[in-house]
Structures are given as C-alpha cells and as structure tokens.
C-alpha cells in the first residue's frame, strides 16, 4: 500500500480511474432505476411503494460501507501512518453522510404507507440515525482539528473517533435480529433471498451503480484535497519569497 503513499503515483492511477468508475456507475444506476420503475412488477402487499427499495438498499449499504471505509482508513493512519489514509477518511465522510440521509429519508417515505408512520424509535431506525450523527460529528471534528492534521486529511483524534464509531456498524446490521423491531428482518442472507427474483434483479444494477459512483466521488474528493495541498504549499513558498 505504501507504493501509493506518493501523491503523484496515486494521482496517476486515480485520475483515469475516476472516469472509469463514474460513467459505468451512472449508466448502471440509471438503467437499474428505469428497470425498477417500469419493468418489474408491483409487490403483492406494498404495491408500487416497493420500488423505493432500489434506492433505499444501496443508500443503506453505502452509508454503512462508508463508515467501514473510514474505520479502515483510520487504522491505516494510526498504525501505518499512511499519508493518504487521512485524506481518504476526510473524502469519504461527506458522501457517506449523504447516503445515510438518503437512506433515512427514503425509509421514512416508505414507512408512511407501509407501516402507517413516518418515524418510530425502533432499533434499526435509531441506530441508523446515530450513524448519521456520527458522520456529522466526524466531519465537524475533522474540520475543527484541521490544524493538527497533515496534508489536508483528518487529525489523529478524528481517526480515533472514526475507529470508535465503527462499533455502530455491526449494531445496525444485527439490530433487527437482536431486538424486536418494526423494520423487517434481513431479506437477503447467505442462504438466499426472500425477495422474489422478478423484483430483485434491478437491485443488483443500482447497488453496483451507486457503489461505483461512490468510489468516483471519493476519488474526486481525494484529488481535490491533494490539489488544495499543492496550492497551499505554493502560496506559502510565494509568501516566504
């Protein structure tokens, strides 16, 4: 991994990779959404509202996946002092928070006609809301301690916060199994899927599409931070004369 510690070498790969992730991601996302809206049949019980699943599930996956990424980056930052890990952590935070918010909002919109309520304090919803607040805290702490940070990344304190916050991820995942909850149990498990195949297949498209798009956003943000570093370094050199 330390081969990519050099920003120049990282950028050489990141620059073309951004486009390779962005355009196929966007294409898959649009194709999956169109199929999910017009091709698949309505659910026997939920009717048309089932279609929100094609956005809700990828958003939930990326909200949780984003924090897992932050935790891995934090570990690399604290243990191996990888210079790009801090930058990666900062780059992941905003899109992670965005997708967590999308997950909460789409879930709420789905909950009203299905359950009869916009919001209930059950285990799954509460732990997901906690994840959203963790993201906000991570972003705020990262900005507040920016002076101690190196190279436009997050500070070590923020990295520790990211590592500690990772405890919430298995709690979100298991919340519907450990506790009686209003949110249904897992539909897709290692044993198979209780979502019928005719409804399931566009989810694969949007899941992959959103994930590629997320990767592209993270790379773009990392590149922006690295470019900002370069600008600042040059300004300092100019100021010194």
């Amino acid at each position, binding site marked *: 991994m330390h081969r990519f510690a050099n920003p120049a070498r990282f950028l050489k790969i990141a620059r073309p990779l951004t486009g390779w992730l962005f355009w196929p991601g966007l294409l898959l996302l649009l194709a999956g959404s169109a199929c999910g809206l017009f091709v*698949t*049949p*309505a*659910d*026997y*019980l*939920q009717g048309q509202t*089932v279609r929100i*699943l094609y956005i809700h599930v990828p958003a939930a996956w990326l909200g949780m996946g984003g924090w897992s990424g932050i935790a891995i980056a934090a*570990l690399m930052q*604290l*243990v*191996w*002092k990888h210079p790009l890990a801090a930058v990666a952590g900062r780059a992941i935070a905003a899109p992670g928070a965005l997708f967590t918010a999308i997950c909460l909002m789409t879930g709420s919109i789905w909950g009203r*006609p*299905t*359950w*009869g*309520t916009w919001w*209930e*304090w*059950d*285990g799954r919803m509460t732990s997901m809301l906690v994840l959203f607040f963790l993201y906000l805290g991570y972003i705020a702490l990262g900005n507040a301690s920016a002076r101690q940070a190196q190279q436009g990344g997050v500070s070590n304190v923020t990295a520790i916060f990211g*590592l*500690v916050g990772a*405890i919430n991820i*298995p*709690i979100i995942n*298991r919340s519907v199994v*450990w*506790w*009686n*909850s*209003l949110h*249904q*149990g*897992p*539909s897709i498990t290692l*044993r*198979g*899927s*209780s*979502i*019928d195949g*005719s*409804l*399931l297949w566009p989810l694969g498209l949007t899941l992959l599409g959103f994930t590629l798009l997320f990767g592209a956003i993270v790379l773009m943000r990392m590149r922006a931070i690295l470019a900002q570093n370069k600008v600042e370094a040059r300004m300092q050199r100019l100021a010194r004369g």
Partner: protein
Amino acid sequence: MKAKHQRLILALAALVALVGAGLLAASALKDEAAYFYAPNDVRTKGVEPGKAVRLGGMVVKNSLKRAADGVTIRFDVTDGKATVPATFSGIAPDLFKEGSGVVAEGSFDAKGTFVATNLLAKHDERYMPRELEGMNYNESTHEMKAER
C-alpha cells in the same frame, strides 16, 4: 519491537475491548431496546395493566371482528407460542389484515385484553409480485410452492 507493531497491537487491543464493550451493552439492552413485546413475552414476564407498551405479532386468521359501533375492532395477536386478545377503535393502516404482522401501541386492561390506541402494520422480509400471492413460502429454503 518496532513502533509500528506496537501501535498495531495497541489499536487491535483497543478494538477488541471496544467490540466487547459494545456487545456487552447490546446484550444488556436486549430487552430494553426491544421495540415491542411479543405475546409470549407478555405471558412469561408479565406486563402490569395500564402500563404503556407496544404489542407485536401476527393477527390470527378469522379472529378479526368489527363491533356494533363500526369503528371498534377486536382481534387476536399471536407469536406462535401465545395469543393475546386486543381491541382498537379508529382507522387501521391499509396493510393491517388477518395473517399479517401488526405492532399495536396501548396498554393491557385488568382482564388481560390489550387496548390499542394506535396500530402499525409490520411488513415482513418477503417481497414478491402479485401473481405469487397465496403461494406457500418455505422460510428455510426461500422457495415458493403453489398452495394445494
């Protein structure tokens, strides 16, 4: 020992302690964080009358009856181990029906009937098109078979 290894061991030890603490907290919360009581929880633990709780389970088939006033419904809630009678006055959500999941907010009266003030329909993890409705679903294999 290199400083790098020291940091790795420290971080892993902290992580193990953290996960342990989280799991302990979660298991201690096990009952408190439950969103609702299942009928069997009511039977084994007992819920005092008048205490505001939620009751969750399946609406027993053929148990749903509408009272003479037109707005009060009576039904039985079961989790397969125990069954509790419940009443509700008001408008039930669209998805509320016999044989599907429900979460009712309210309290028990002195006779052990659950008086609900609000009904929520609980959706299960099954998603399928209308053509497959009424087919039998095998929970362990996730397979659908036509009803005989």
